[in-house]
């Protein structure tokens, strides 16, 4: 069956306001306990190698 526009809906709902929380929603205690993420060049090279094996990269 061909897909054709059929249903009709009103387009009257307003976009909700962004959440009223502050922009910098950071928990300083959590931040101090979080590990540092470091992508080393050899990590990035490994990602490329693995994705090449998958055919994602030619």
């Amino acid at each position, binding site marked *: *069956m*061909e*897909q*054709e*526009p*059929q*249903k*009709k*809906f*009103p*387009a*009257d*709902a*307003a*976009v*909700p*306001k*962004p*959440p009223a*929380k502050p*922009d910098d*929603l*950071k*928990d*300083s*205690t*959590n*931040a101090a*306990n*979080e*590990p*540092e*993420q*470091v*992508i080393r*060049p050899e*990590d*990035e*090279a*490994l*990602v*490329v190698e*693995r*994705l090449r*094996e*998958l*055919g*994602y*990269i*030619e």
Partner: protein
Amino acid sequence: MQAKPNIILISADSLRANHLGCYGYSLPTSPNIDKFAGEGALFEKVFAPGIPTQPSHTTIFTGQHPVTHGVVAHGGKAKLARGTPFLSEILLEEGYTTCAVDTLFRERIWFGRGWEYIIDPSLHHLFYASVTQEELNDRAIHWMKTVPKAPFFMFIHYWDVHYPYVPPDRMRGMFYKGGNPTDPDNHALDAWWDHPVGAMARDTWLRTPNGLITDPNYVTALYDREIRYLDEGIAALSDALDKQGLAENTMVVLLADHGESMTDHGIYYDHYGLHDCTVQVPTIIRWPAGNLKAGTRFAPFRQLFDIAPTLLEAAGSELPEDLDGKSFLPQLTGKEEPSGYDQVIGCESTWQSKYYLRTDRYKFILARYPDLLGNPDRELFDLQADPGEDHNIAAEEPQVVAEMEKELEAWIAAKMEAAGRTEDPVRKEGPVAVEIWEQHRG
């Protein structure tokens, strides 16, 4: 004012719709995207006819379903036929100056079609998806300032939300409600290591000086921080348009090629599986000169193949006859009532080879080959009772399964015939990456 609008098409790779505030997310990941939506139109139910990146972007640029254009897999054998209409090529012929700030042409050659300019700052990285919104915006904004003539069509493809999730260090502490991200006794992610992409994550971006990240809530927080970082980039781009006086007659389309599964359905931080978390995509359009009613939300089903005809109509271009998509421009500009599809159909053929047929009530998923997650070949979900698609009710509703399967097969057969195909492209391609998955498990 020029008659034809400038067009900026933004694809945020792997951006899951319901992780944005304007799509109902509870965390403040997207204040600027929400503001952008409030200035334009938001489409609540847009679906990708093909996933992941290569099939979906092929659909976005051709206005065709993957069964029509034939590119059903990421990294598959199928090539896009040279005669297939391509959005950037058509706009170039219409007098647009075209520019892609993108990497896709490095993956598949047809993504290079129709661009007078291709800018690729990802060349500074070993892995192209490590390119940041700041690097892309730096080039895109400079190009807009020096664009030789209007109108222009620019495509910007942001990779921040795609794995690896490595947000800026300054975002530490956001969106994570405590716990120990590297608890060695937390084994909630162990099943992920069974997948090649999971093993790659374990061996690279999840490794930290404190140990391996093991808490899925922390990985989700990293994903949400990437959205927040992308959100800053959308604001910077929008500000640049304002400052250059381009905002009024520039149609900006923000969408995603697919969403992301965050452990949903046994799929960890990846984009396969035909559940709504992955096939439903955000789509937001702002175009002040187009008389869009600010804050409009469109509820009907649409599909990503509708984007190309909509943009072509906005550009005043004649639509090619062989598009599957339908322009929704008249609805966008208030000349027609909102309308859409009763049902949507899509497919994938990368980690698994399947089709989905989705109505407002049900999602039916049909496998062409058994998947490695052990799911049955036929799955049915009642989306009203089970919006998370957690309970397969195929055995309880055999009549619904039979009807939807018949409908789906008839649609595939008709689409193949229209495209001149004699073989189902999903069956033909098969799950192209599954052999590596099996070897990895082996």
